[in-house]
């Protein structure tokens, strides 16, 4: 089918393999919001689209919900699309996500979600497979980069046949696993057309229409199971002990089975697609007396099996055969299967202190926090609690800053500081980054701006989405207009440049804001040193300079 192209091999991360596949599947556009470990997926698609320069679109959105809606609009227009996010980003996109299953999709729609078991760079390790189940959409889970490519290519056809979004679920270890990936011949960028007028009511989720759509969605389960069937395999074996393997659990098992080939004679259920049919589960369980389940993150497949198991012992996370939390480790799988642990080096007696990430040399956040700490002391509020947010600046929770006493989810600082102030903790102090503020701080800020409470919001404006690798922020340098536009008295909007040489004046500004018996905003604006080095805002700044010259 694909002669010359089948030899095209690239070296790609797992999330990049998804991007190559989406590009080759003829997507019209890719959207996302940065979040480790999903970011490089969008960025690879963006590079391909830019290099091609043929009118396709790559756009970082203000948040995942917006990204999802942009993608849904592309799909409505009949084109294929990709939207990327990390697991907690899907919480933000939840409303669009769940309801897009009811409307269904027009052009093929793939959602790349990167889960982070072990919380390498996340605030939780939630498992997105439950959300695919919750929304009644298919979920494909590759174990290798090549599968990530192949499944994504397949997912577009699957999405168009079922008229449903398809979730591609990756975990950190695959998302950031670099290897060779063979690409296949590309599909053209073409539209299947707008929804037929008779289908338009299905896109208008007023209750009467929504009830009909929900019935249709429920009726898709049969075709869905038929389509997903080939992704799940039952391999018979000669033992009465069995293995259920999904995603990285499957990859890990096969790596370890090199050392214990007899394990390959056990019957196996290999799960790469959800939903998982009950028939297959029953046939697998019928061959076994005892099974072991290896999957990444929550015990999702394990619980499905447990629900069907009669007289079959199921071992996994629930019975603590494997730890209920954290990444699936090779050592755990070894111990469970009785594969001897190899002899390692003798440990050294010297204690190895941890090396946590730290602020870059020259980072403006440091100067801002030093000024904040002193200003709090001067304003008689040294003992107050500071509500923080998601970004590099959350590192201020650690010594020597000790300047963050809560950090929950994107945008939480604004609402929590205000709520605490309503409860008497005044001055209420919140710290948020510019990208996080635009992502999810704005709705909370509408309450903040006119609150009758002493609340101060510091916006750590580094003119980029810093922590995820310095992506552009659309609202660069617009924060003063945004906060006053949302109702804050301009007299209480201050902009400072966080630099050591301006320490005294910055302390004075923050102290005045803390003492003001109403809402204040202090915008601490200095570009991220990494963003400066990369020239993230170079084009923007050039345009502004030219406009100023007239």
């Amino acid at each position: 089918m694909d002669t010359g192209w089948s030899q095209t091999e690239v070296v790609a991360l797992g999330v990049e393999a998804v991007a190559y596949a989406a590009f080759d599947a003829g997507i019209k556009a890719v959207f996302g919001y940065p979040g480790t470990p999903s970011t490089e997926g969008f960025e690879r698609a963006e590079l391909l689209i830019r290099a091609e320069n043929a009118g396709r679109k790559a756009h970082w959105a203000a948040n995942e919900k917006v990204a999802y809606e942009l993608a849904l609009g592309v799909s409505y227009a009949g084109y294929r699309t990709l939207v990327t996010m990390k697991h907690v980003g899907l919480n933000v996109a939840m409303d669009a996500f769940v309801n897009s299953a009811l409307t269904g999709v027009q052009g093929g729609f793939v959602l790349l979600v990167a889960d982070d078991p072990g919380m390498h760079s996340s605030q939780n390790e939630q498992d997105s497979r439950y959300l695919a189940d919750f929304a009644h959409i298919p979920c494909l889970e590759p174990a290798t980069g090549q599968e990530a490519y192949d499944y994504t290519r397949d997912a577009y056809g699957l999405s168009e046949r079922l008229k449903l979004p398809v979730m591609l679920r990756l975990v950190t270890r695959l998302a950031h696993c670099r290897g060779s990936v063979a690409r296949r011949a590309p599909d053209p960028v073409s539209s299947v057309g707008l929804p037929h007028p008779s289908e338009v009511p299905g896109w208008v989720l007023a209750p009467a229409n929504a009830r009909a759509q929900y019935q249709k969605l429920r009726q898709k389960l049969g075709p869905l199971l038929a389509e997903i069937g080939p992704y799940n395999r039952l391999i018979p074996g000669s033992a009465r002990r069995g293995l259920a393997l999904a995603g990285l659990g499957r990859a890990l098992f096969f790596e370890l089975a090199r050392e214990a080939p007899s394990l390959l004679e056990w019957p196996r259920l290999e799960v790469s697609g959800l939903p998982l049919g009950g028939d297959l589960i029953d046939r697998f369980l019928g061959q076994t007396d005892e099974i072991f389940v290896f999957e990444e993150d929550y015990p999702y497949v394990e619980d499905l099996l447990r629900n069907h198991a009669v007289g079959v012992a199921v071992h996994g996370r629930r019975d603590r055969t494997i730890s209920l939390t954290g990444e699936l480790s090779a050592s755990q799988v070894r111990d469970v299967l009785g594969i001897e642990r190899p002899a390692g080096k003798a440990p050294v007696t010297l204690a190895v202190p941890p090396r946590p990430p730290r602020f870059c040399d020259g980072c403006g956040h440091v100067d801002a926090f030093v000024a904040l700490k002193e200003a709090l002391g001067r304003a008689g509020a040294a003992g107050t609690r500071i509500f923080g947010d998601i970004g590099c600046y959350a590192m201020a929770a650690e010594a020597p800053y000790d300047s963050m006493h809560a950090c929950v989810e994107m945008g939480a600082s604004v609402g929590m500081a205000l709520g605490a102030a309503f409860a008497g903790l005044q001055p209420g102090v919140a710290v948020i980054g510019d990208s996080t503020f635009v992502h999810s701080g704005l709705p909370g800020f509408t309450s903040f701006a006119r609150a009758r409470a002493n609340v101060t919001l510091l916006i750590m404006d580094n003119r980029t989405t810093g922590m995820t690798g310095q992506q552009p922020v659309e609202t660069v340098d617009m924060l003063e207009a945004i906060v006053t536009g949302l109702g804050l008295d301009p007299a209480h909007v201050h902009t400072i440049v966080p630099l050591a040489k301006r320490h005294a004046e910055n302390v004075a500004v923050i102290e005045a804001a803390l003492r003001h018996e109403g809402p204040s905003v202090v915008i601490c604006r200095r570009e991220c040193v990494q963003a400066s080095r990369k020239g993230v805002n170079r084009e923007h700044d050039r345009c502004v300079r030219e406009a100023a010259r007239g």
Partner: protein
Amino acid sequence: MADLAHDPYRLILVGVGGQGTLTLAQMIMEVARRSGYRALQSEIHGMSQRGGTVYAYLSVSRGAILTPAAMEASSHLLIALEPLEALRYLPYLRSDALLFVAREPVRTLPDYPDDPTLFAALEAVPGATLVDTPALAQTLRLKQAGGMALLGLAARRLPFDAPVWRSVIAERFGPGTAVTEKNLQAFAHGLG
């Protein structure tokens, strides 16, 4: 061409964010690919880039590899751009593993051990070689000389031909440039 000492051969490269750990790993991977081997690399991105600990775990094989996920006591060779990081990843090494370690502490921690204690602990590890990378960097007037020398030391244990190494290094730093020449010298220093 000689073959891998073990198949799959597993390497772990460690350092501090910003030292170029992942770049070194990618060069090994590219050399392996061009030499007809399969290679897979597991990396940690994100917060760890901000001066935190960084590692890349690399598996090289004649056949298919499914996951390079870090497996305890499984690596055959460690390259450490920073000595304390070498000790941190000791549990990932096989008993017979070789360690090539830069004698170049990055002291961004309050409770970092002093040089004699740290180096003594490393020298007591069987298979460890400490390399005076600061001296090499000074001689060659090249900041990343140490990493390239460690790469050369590792290359001695890998079945890939020197011209392949040299062409990958040259492509990384720009063919025919002065910086490429210095990197090749540093690599040759390690290769011996």
